[in-house]
């Protein structure tokens, strides 16, 4: 018997499809690349728990057939920290967006990276607030238009991959929705990394970013991203003027080091003859 549906559909809550993402939105592509990346690892999908905040990309966990925690705006990483420390055996994956992770959740992002907690964070960066209708975000390119930047944004955007690398994450990569194979590979490496892994995915929001910035169709946005992407190795040989408006893709950090839940576990082992307590809520007192 040959399956007659997308090989990625089996990971989804079928009764909830089609998902709410706009036509051409990159979120769906990232979902599939995640599942492909996961298939490359030894991780059992049953052991995956997804956590997200608020925004379009944060709806992804709601479609995946696994335990999922759809939390408050910007706070996904703090919930994920509790979940992962509470049960280090879970494979905890966080889906977030540029507004969620870098604006309202910016402080949680740098601290989770600093602690190098073993989470895999997939940040779908579409340079705009999609769910609320196209306001500029902390990653909106200078000069881009949004409903709150009618004259073009004059703010300096965050370089998320660089920011998170500097904060101490042990694995950081940036790819785009036009690089699904490289993205899957990066997600696989992120999942396998025993520490804080941050995969930034530059993605298209045709509905808001595209429409506000003269790229009316999903394809136009897709092509724009593809054409402006430059591999990190090549970019290193280019000067600032040449890199203007370019999306640098590749690996930004791959530097495994001491991880939070391991440290907590070791501390308990040094101070107690009991195993690390997990699921204490279900246990009677001795």
């Amino acid at each position, binding site marked *: 018997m040959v399956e007659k549906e997308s090989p990625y559909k089996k990971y989804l809550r079928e009764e909830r499809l089609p998902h709410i993402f706009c036509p051409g939105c990159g979120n769906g592509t990232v979902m599939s690349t995640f599942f492909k990346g996961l298939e490359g690892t030894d991780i059992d999908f049953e052991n995956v728990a997804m956590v997200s905040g608020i925004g379009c990309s944060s709806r992804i966990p*709601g479609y995946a057939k696994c335990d999922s925690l*759809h939390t408050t705006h910007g706070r996904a990483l703090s919930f994920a*920290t*509790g979940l992962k420390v509470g049960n280090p055996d879970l494979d905890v994956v966080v889906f977030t967006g540029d507004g969620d992770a870098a604006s309202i959740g910016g402080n949680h992002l740098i601290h989770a990276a600093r602690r190098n907690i073993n989470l895999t964070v997939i940040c779908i960066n579409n340079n705009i607030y999609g769910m609320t209708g196209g306001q500029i975000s902390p990653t909106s390119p200078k000069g881009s238009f949004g409903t709150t930047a009618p004259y073009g944004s004059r703010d300096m955007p965050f370089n998320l991959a660089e920011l998170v690398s500097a904060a101490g994450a042990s694995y950081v990569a940036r790819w785009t929705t036009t690089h699904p194979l490289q993205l899957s590979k990066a997600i696989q490496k992120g999942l396998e990394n025993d520490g804080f892994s941050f995969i930034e995915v530059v993605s298209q929001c045709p509905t808001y970013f595209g429409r506000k910035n003269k790229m009316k169709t999903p394809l136009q946005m897709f092509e724009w991203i593809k054409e402006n992407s430059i591999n990190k190795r090549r970019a290193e040989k280019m000067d600032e003027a040449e890199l203007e408006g370019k999306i640098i893709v590749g690996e930004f950090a791959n530097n495994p080091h001491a991880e*939070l839940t391991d440290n907590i576990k070791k501390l*308990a082992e040094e101070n107690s003859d009991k195993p690390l307590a997990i699921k*204490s*809520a*279900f*246990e009677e007192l001795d």
Partner: protein
Amino acid sequence: MVEERFVQGNEACALGAIAANCRFFAGYPITPSTEIAEQMSILLPKYGGSFVQMEDEIASAGAIIGASWSGMKAMTATSGPGISLMQENIGYGFITETPIVIINVQRGSPSTGQPTMSAQADMMQVRWGSHGDYEPIALAPSSVQEFFDFTIKAFNLAEEYRVPVTVLADEVVGHMREKLIIPDDIEIVTRKRPEKVDGQYLPFDAPCDGTTPMPAFGDGFNIHVTGLTHDERGYPDTNDPDTHTKLVERLCNKVLMHRKDICSVKKENCDDADIVIVSCGSPYRSVGAAMKKAREEGIKVGSLKIDTPWPFPEEEIAEIAKTASDIIVPEMNLGQIVHEVERAAHGEANVHLIGKIGGILHKPDEIYDKIKEING
């Protein structure tokens, strides 16, 4: 074996949490609650538990909810400014029915106010602080022993009703040292866990006044937990008025309809009392001496101590109001619980506030003077 210690209230709270099987603490330093975090950082590793100092109080509240879904009993401790920051995630705790315990050692407010001084500044914030309709549970200790006992009770109620529970302590109770008796037979409530995976489990399909068992992430139930209005499967359903009404009414009912089981008051000399002093938390400590002094003079004074400000013990107050002519409410604020007392008294007794701010507990004579004034 029963153990006796001479400890601070904040330390008793940490010991209570450990006794209740709390094995996860996330917090952020803030006076006058910091000793709880410090104690938890000492104790948890010895019990195989986990302590994380978070980047702020918002993250602390998020982390304990995440930990709760991992299957842990989890707690944070803070004071007014931190409670303000936590409100958003506490609201998330209500709508997702996540058992967590929040310790609030209250201090002079608003804003940064008086970090090292006492107040009952957040009685109403715990009731209404997060946006929307919900019914919180809160316990207010008045001694080191009660801080220990109520922390355990907070965990038990949180598990029983799948709800965030706050212990509304204050600087006086948090910082004073008294004898703590740790009994050897502590009753704790364990979390109800759904039976094995059969594809039929609906995580939010509860009777109109109840909850369903709660699995841990990783148990194989593949549940979706969201702060959006959701159906019994946990799936967002945000535009249907009926789904929202059914969900939020149930969240309220599971506490309101069990008010009798949750509410706790301590009544003394109320049967013949003309004047009843209704207190909650630390101010109770000043009631006894005032009552004794007045009784010695033949003034019939009683005391009703509220252990659980939320849900508010309406019936008990209504009953008192029927027999007493006057009710005195000493509070370390300019009037918060007194409004609830007035509401519950239905105009049947005169309600007098002794509102005190500045950081110092009422002296017994301040209450005694009010009794004399009313007695004429």
